[in-house]
């Protein structure tokens, strides 16, 4: 499977948030998406996830055009995403949160329950599984949202700042899950500002700045690319 973006563009008023972005992510890749604030990463993710429709350009998942489709259709096509500001269902239990994701994507009641319990164990959320989403800590909520992406393993998981504001132990849990699943063939696109983690997890990275892709190669090269440094630090570098 592959996720292909071709010349995706989106402007709001006078600002071009995403400027003719193109890239290709093959099955099994673990790709990082980096770039300073305002570079268009989240807008790009919103376009990929269906929350926004691009002004022009195409997004293909496994050969199927998905740009402009409703988010639920894109989810059924196998693209699941996390949000920058954690989105879980606050008034139902953690367990029910997972069950929604599972049932909506086709699992039967028994299978969904089994899978959910498995994930709860994996994410160390067992003890809080009966608590309403609102009563979980911020980090637990992020883990829970993370878990909802894996009830039915997606073709590609888009994670938007999964490590932001999360306790070190939970970061570890998430990183472990990502590594394990990647080893089993899961494709990831991870947006993050946490450079050490990106360096550790992602063999390849794409860097955006002011709406355009300015680097797309192995992570080490991206992070030492002068254009990338200029984008983050601003101003000329020698």
């Amino acid at each position, binding site marked *: 499977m592959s996720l292909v973006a071709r010349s995706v563009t989106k402007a709001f008023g006078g600002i071009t948030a995403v400027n003719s972005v193109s890239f290709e992510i093959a099955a099994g890749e673990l790709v990082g998406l980096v770039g300073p604030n305002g570079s268009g990463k989240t807008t790009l993710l919103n376009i990929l996830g269906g929350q926004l429709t691009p002004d022009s350009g195409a997004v293909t998942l496994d050969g199927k055009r998905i740009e402009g489709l409703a988010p639920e259709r894109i*989810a*059924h096509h196998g693209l699941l995403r996390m949000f920058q500001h954690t989105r879980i*269902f*606050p008034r*139902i239990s953690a367990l029910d949160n997972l069950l929604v994701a599972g*049932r909506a994507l086709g699992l039967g*009641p028994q299978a969904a329950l089994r899978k959910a319990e498995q994930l709860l164990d994996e994410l160390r959320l067992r003890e809080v599984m009966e608590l309403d989403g609102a*009563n979980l800590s911020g980090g637990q909520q992020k883990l829970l949202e993370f878990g909802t992406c894996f009830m039915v393993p997606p073709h590609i998981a888009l994670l938007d700042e999964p490590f932001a504001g999360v306790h070190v132990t939970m970061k570890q849990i998430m990183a472990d899950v990502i590594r394990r699943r990647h080893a089993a063939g899961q494709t990831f696109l991870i947006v993050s500002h946490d450079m050490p983690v990106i360096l550790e997890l992602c063999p390849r990275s794409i860097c955006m700045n002011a709406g355009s892709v300015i680097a797309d190669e192995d992570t080490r090269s991206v992070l030492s690319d002068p254009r990338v440094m200029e984008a983050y630090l601003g101003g000329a570098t020698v």
Partner: protein
Amino acid sequence: MQHFHHRIALEFTLVLGVLAVVACLPVVITNPYWLGVIIVSMYFALLASGWNLLAGYTGQFSLAPACFAMIGAYTTGLLAHYFSAPPWFGIAAAMVVAGGVGSLLGRIVLRLRGPYLALTTLSFAEVIRVVIGNSYNVTRGDLGLNVPGIFDSRLAYYFLFLAVLVLVQIALFALLKARVGLYLQAIRDDEVAAASRGVNVVFWKTAAFTISAAVSGLAGALYGHFSQLVSPELGLIFQTGLVISMVVIGGIGSLVGPVVGALLVYIASEWLRDVGGYHLIVFALLVILFSRFFREGLWGLVRRALAPARAPLPAATVKRGWL
């Protein structure tokens, strides 16, 4: 689903218990006036249950439930009046027509939230009420339309309403226990997240509107045949206000709240009417107090008293929380 399953199974058992008590009441209450009061309270219990599905479980605070009751009542009334249709047909048609209009409203307000949703549903309801009220040639306007009754004995109506109420509770329980219940609540909690997890938000929102409207239409049709007169007053915003208040007092978002709320509030208000006529004031005040301080309503209070160990964290420690 364990947590929600247990809770909803418990609530369902309680509702059946309450309705079992209602079933036994005619043994002690033989006064036809009071039987009538309980019948009307069951009418409201139906409306409340339907609205609760839409607002409490799906998060769509529509201000149109009374309008759908009115549509249901007029459907069966007009069919009986002009085509001599038998009541069972009229009632079935009422559900279909009300449900159809409900799904139309649902499509209209798909993208609206909060005050915009409230205003649009309010206007929709008012427009329909004004149209029905002014179509004197067809509906006899404010004079009301005479509708044939079904039974001769009030007791028979009593058990008809009760039976329908029980059936509706069973249907709601089955619906909410299944994945539908999860989807609706997910939509209520966070539409965007729900969609991104694969829930067909458009379909289920519209479905919630349709089912809620159909239940209201059913209630209205039954009421029409009971009171044998339907008028646009059925669709007054005031009636919607009553329904909302009953649900809030009973406990919104639970299976048992609407039924208990409707029965208690309506019967109590009729009893208070005997005493001094302050019933609506007291009643409105109760709603204000409950919504201001305790949105879980009576059912929430009961739950809190019976199972403190399972109570969620107190407000002070939960910043964005709800009690």
